[in-house]
Every structure is written in structure tokens, then in C-alpha cells.
């Protein structure tokens, strides 16, 4: 029987089917960070359990770390959490990429960089954006702290089989339309719960044409449509990414050739059946900007702020509440909405390609007066690469703030935060109330759109601007 990519990975990782009908699924890579792991390690200590496979467990610190002075963390509670991760990794023998490491960065950025993220593997992390790794054809999903402890102790998870949901982006997106716009468009169509209980498989001409960076952006936001995981079948683009660069955990030489032969068997078989399917015409997608307080509240940049009652899938009350929070009036052209802050970074758009895209817009221009622009590379490797290419000079010359790597203003656990009422064009993944700081107003956009907004001081349509 023809199988989907998801089914191939699922089937090859089943340790056994348990009496209650759930499946004991083997986990190939367990990534951990400082925020969702301390209680899990504490649980191990209380029960006298060990980490079953420290060799398959990798840690970094990203959520809570400052992006300016990393040597002296001022907040004692943040520092305690970071120190706790170091101590737990030391005690349980887990490899840690700490703030001194040249490989430190956002967990979902360093996994692929290090070659830990490989096609056909299962990857989990106590973070919902673990779906990012699906770009390589890995089954990757976020888990809670109890499950982190479960994986630490057993290297497995008990799982119920999710449904499969095929999303085809046919055609080619126009100039200025990125992976970020395609995924926001999908979320706008099906809503933030539209993929709940499902694993997406993204396919079609527009997906095949994406770089690995773009594919990671797309898979990253699967969770914003409710799906725990998103997958893209591995192809030559994937193999090319994995074959190059300093990726200490990726196979090399003959082992790489053998791996590629195995990876080529992963794509969904012709005739494989999905539980749900959707086709989106990529050529008709415009640059997307969120206007509300969840990623499904999204519109074309050329549109006007909607009124309560005219947004499918949301009650008038939900829209009213979102507009009140966002300080927006129905009917206002989006391009008239002015911005205070720009954030370029995160596991969604903090990779080298994203910084290059932003730099290409900012080069030789100045950020509009009064606008704060934070550029936060996703990892130390991205930072180093950007500096080697002179992107940092472009950013600084145009008036941007060039920072150290981390999650930063995506979730604002560290000092990078919005003030009440401050409006931000952000390349991150969530525009929830207070996400980037209490009272802060977030609009999700692509790096190009964020950079252009920085210069103009308001949203612009990247397709016609300049």
C-alpha cells in the first residue's frame, strides 16, 4: 500500500503498540533548552532515574538569554535558570552549547546547522516550534515538560497517530512573496486550529523552489495552524544543504551516500492517501501582514483593516477585542499604519537568508527617525556568517541595532521587550496579546517587509515600493 512520508517515519519508529492502543514511538534526537527542562531534570532526580541516551540529547540556552551583554546577566532569576541548565547537563552527561560556545543559538536554528536534523528521523523538544525541523523530512514536534522527562528517561513517547494533511502550493509566488507569506496565507485560510490533530505535508512547485531556510520558515509556523508537525519531502536541495559546511553530526563520505540513498525512499508514494488536502495558488498570494492577536488574523498588505463581523471564522466580539488591543480602526489602509519598532530574528526568520534579505532592502538607506530596529541573528554561526558578509555593517550604517543570538523579542523573556502601546513589525511567529511585552502590538511579516517598514516608518507593499 502506498505510504505518505509521515507514515514511513511513524512506522519505522514504532517500538511497539501498547495495550491501550497508543504507540511507543522512538525518539532519535532530543533537543532541550533552559526554560522547559529544569522541572524534568528535577523529576529524574526525585525518582533516581537517569538520562537513557545522553548521546542523543543536546542542549542550548536561547529563550532567556540577553542579546547585548551575555557575560553579566542582570536578572538573577534568569541567571539561575541558565545556571541550572548548565548544572543539569553536567550532572546527567548531556552535551551543552552554552553562551560561550561558537555554536550557541536558537535550538531550532542550531539543530540543522550542526547536522543533527536529518531526513527520516524523529526529533522532539520542549518547544512548539520544533516543527521547524520538518523542513528536512524529519518528524519533529513540540512537547511539554512531562514529556521532556519521559524522553529523557526512556528515549520514547507514547503517542496517538495524528491525521495527515497535504498542503500543495501550486505555481510560483511573485516577487517579494516569501515562505513567510505562504505560511501566513495558509493560517489565514484554515485558522489557528485548522490543522489541530494533523501533520502537514507541504508540497508543490512553490515549496520545491524554496531554499532550506524558506522551508524551515514554512514548517516552523505549522503549529500556528494547530498542527504539531509539518513535513517537506527531502530532495536535492536538502542533500545539498546537508553535504556542505561544518555539520559535525551529519554523515560524510560513503556514509553520506548511503544516507542519501535511504533518504530518497522517504517521499510520499504516488497514490498515498491523506486524510485532508488543500491546494493554494502561490502565484496569487500577496505579502501578508497580521492585523489582530493571533496568526490567523492576517491580510494582504494592500488591504484595509477589517471590521467586526466581516472576518470569516471569528466572532464580531473576537475581532472587536483584537482591534481594541491593536489600536486599529476598521477601514484604515494597512499601509497607513505606522510602526515604532522592528524585530528581525527568531526561529522563524533568524537565518542567514533572512538577514541577507533584510540587508538587501536596508543597504544604503536609513531607518526612519524614531524607529528602533533590533536585528538578532538566530545563532552565533549566523552572526559570524553575517559579519563575514558585511551585513552587520549595512545594518549598523542604516541605524539598526545588531545583537547577539537568541530568541529575544519573539517571546520577550529577556530584556528585549515592547512597552505598552508600542507597535512592532516582527519577523517572529506569534502576535498574541502581550507576546512581545505587556500591551505591545505585534504585526507578523517577512524580513523584507519588516526592513522596508523600518525605512518607511509604516507598512509598505514590497512589490511596488521603491
Amino acid at each position: 500500500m502506498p505510504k505518505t512520508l509521515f507514515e514511513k517515519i511513524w512506522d519505522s519508529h514504532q517500538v511497539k503498540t501498547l495495550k491501550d492502543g497508543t504507540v511507543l514511538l522512538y525518539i532519535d534526537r532530543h533537543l532541550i533548552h533552559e526554560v522547559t527542562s529544569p522541572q524534568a531534570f528535577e523529576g529524574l532526580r526525585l525518582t533516581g532515574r537517569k538520562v537513557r541516551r545522553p548521546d542523543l540529547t543536546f542542549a542550548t540556552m536561547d529563550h532567556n538569554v540577553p542579546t547585548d551583554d551575555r557575560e553579566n546577566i542582570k536578572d538573577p532569576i534568569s541567571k539561575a535558570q541558565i545556571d541550572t541548565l548548565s548544572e543539569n547537563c553536567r550532572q546527567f552527561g548531556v552535551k551543552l552549547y552554552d553562551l560561550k560556545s561558537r555554536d550557541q543559538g536558537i535550538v531550532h536554528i542550531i539543530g540543522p546547522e550542526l547536522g543533527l536534523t536529518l531526513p527520516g528521523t524523529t526529533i522532539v523538544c520542549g518547544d512548539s516550534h520544533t516543527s521547524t525541523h520538518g523542513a528536512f523530512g524529519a518528524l519533529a514536534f513540540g512537547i511539554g515538560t512531562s514529556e521532556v522527562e519521559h524522553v529523557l528517561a526512556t528515549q520514547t513517547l507514547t503517542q496517538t497517530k495524528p491525521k495527515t494533511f497535504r498542503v500543495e502550493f501550486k505555481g510560483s509566488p511573485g516577487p517579494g512573496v516569501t515562505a513567510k507569506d505562504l505560511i501566513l496565507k495558509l493560517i489565514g485560510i484554515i485558522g489557528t486550529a485548522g490543522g489541530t490533530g494533523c501533520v502537514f505535508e507541504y508540497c508543490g512547485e512553490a515549496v520545491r523552489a524554496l531554499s532550506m531556510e524558506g522551508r524551515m520558515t514554512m514548517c516552523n509556523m505549522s503549529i500556528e495552524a494547530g498542527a504539531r508537525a509539518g513535513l517537506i519531502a527531502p530532495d536535492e536541495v536538502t542533500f545539498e544543504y546537508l553535504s556542505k559546511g561544518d555539520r559535525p553530526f551529519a554523515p560524510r563520505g560513503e556514509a553520506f551516500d548511503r544516507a542519501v540513498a535511504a533518504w530518497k525512499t522517504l517521499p510520499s508514494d504516488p497514490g498515498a492517501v491523506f486524510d485532508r488536502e488543500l491546494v493554494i495558488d502561490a502565484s496569487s498570494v500577496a505579502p501578508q501582514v497580521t492585523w489582530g492577536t493571533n496568526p490567523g488574523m492576517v491580510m494582504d498588505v494592500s488591504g484595509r483593516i477589517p471590521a467586526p463581523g466581516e472576518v470569516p471564522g471569528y466572532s464580531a466580539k473576537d475581532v472587536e477585542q483584537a482591534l481594541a488591543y491593536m489600536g486599529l480602526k476598521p477601514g484604515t489602509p494597512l499601509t497607513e499604519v505606522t510602526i515604532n519598532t522592528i524585530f528581525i530574528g527568531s526561529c522563524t526568520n533568524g537565518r542567514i537568508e533572512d538577514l541577507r534579505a533584510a540587508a538587501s532592502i536596508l543597504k544604503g538607506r536609513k531607518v526612519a527617525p524614531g524607529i528602533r530596529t533590533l536585528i538578532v541573528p538566530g545563532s552565533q554561526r549566523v552572526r559570524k556568517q553575517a559579519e563575514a558578509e558585511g551585513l552587520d555593517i549595512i545594518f549598523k550604517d542604516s541605524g539598526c541595532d545588531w545583537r547577539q543570538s537568541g530568541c529575544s523579542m519573539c517571546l520577550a523573556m529577556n530584556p528585549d521587550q515592547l512597552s505598552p502601546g508600542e507597535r512592532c513589525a516582527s519577523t517572529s511567529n506569534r502576535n498574541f496579546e502581550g507576546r512581545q511585552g505587556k500591551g505591545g502590538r505585534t504585526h507578523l511579516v517577512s524580513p523584507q517587509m519588516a526592513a522596508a517598514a523600518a525605512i518607511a516608518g509604516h507598512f509598505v507593499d514590497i512589490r511596488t515600493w521603491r
Partner: protein
Amino acid sequence: MQAFTHHRGVLALLDTANVDTDQIIAKQFLKSIKRTGFGEHLFHDWRYHADGRLNETFALNSKEFQGATVLVTRNNFGCGSSREHAVWAVQQYGFRAVIAPFKGEGDSRIPGFADIFRNNCSKNGLLTIEFSEKEVDSIFESVSARPGIEASIDLEKQTVEVHGSPALSLHFDISPAVKARLLSGLDDIGTTLQEVQAISDFEKRHNDQLSASPR
């Protein structure tokens, strides 16, 4: 884990869809390395004004809902981040169960709770109950007519009795695996470790992708 068999308590209404885990427990409270102390911070930005005063217009602050143990809300509750702190906050505030509506039917049915949140609930003994939108509407109507009324939940029978007038008697579906775990309150990891031989056998036959030693 705290077992769940049956429970009787006051119903509280939160008439908002897509409540995300950032609202349930804001990031500034995630710096703790402990598993306790989150209840007082539940829905922080909604419960309190910027100056720290109680926001009296927020539903959970109304006097009829004080001491409530069953939260009734709208669809897609718990979306967003995987933070289990959200479940700990709901539970430590005093809730034993959360009720939310699923949408649609059959293959296009959308669950009432986000996946990771619901999963995290099942690991902590917090019962998530799904009804149709119509059924949840009926609970909203009952409670709105007589705020402060109680409900009785029987997990074994999969029923919720709403003690309003008229009384409502509702039946819910639940995964048999989750039901069994909640009823027993057994430690998940302990249960899985009984399969340690099967895990070792699997590791022996699992392909060489497993090896993650740097070259």
C-alpha cells in the same frame, strides 16, 4: 500524577475563543525552575491592571466564580506555546477540569483544545472535556442564568451534570488511553519503563541514523 475519578464544583465561564498559552501564563513567570507557584499568575494580564489592581471586569474575578473548579470556555483553548506551565497554572489556580467545544463533524472536526496543551493536561490529571458548540452554548446559558452553579463530573461514566434549572445532563467522548491514565493516576514514565526490554531491542535493530556521535 493526581488521579481523576469524579468531581463536583462551581463552573466559571471564560467567553473567549483561541485562548493562547501566553495569556494563560505570561512569559515572565516561566523563569521559575519549580513546578509550583503558577496559580496566582494565571491569566495575569487579564486579571490585573498594569498597576497591579484587580481587573474587576474580568470574568474569573467576579464574585460568583470565586472558588470555581470547572472552567468552561470556547474553542482552541491552549493554542500556541508548548509551555506546560500553562497547565500547572490552570490546575494550581484550582481548576480540575476544562470544558471547550469542538467544531465541525467527521474528518473536518476541529478539537476544542490545542494538541500540546491537551496532551500536557493528560500528564497532570487536568481533565479536558469536549462537547459540541451547541452543548457548550447550553452550559453558558445555564451558568449565565444562575452564576455560581455547580457541575458534577463522572469520568468513568463520561458524564457532566450541570446543576442549573433546568439541569443539564451531558455525555462526552474521551480517548480510552487518556481515560485509563487519568482514572489510575499512574506515573507514565514508570509504565513505559516496564517496556525497557522492547526499547533496548528496538535500539539494536534501529538503523544507523541513530548514531549521533560527532566525527
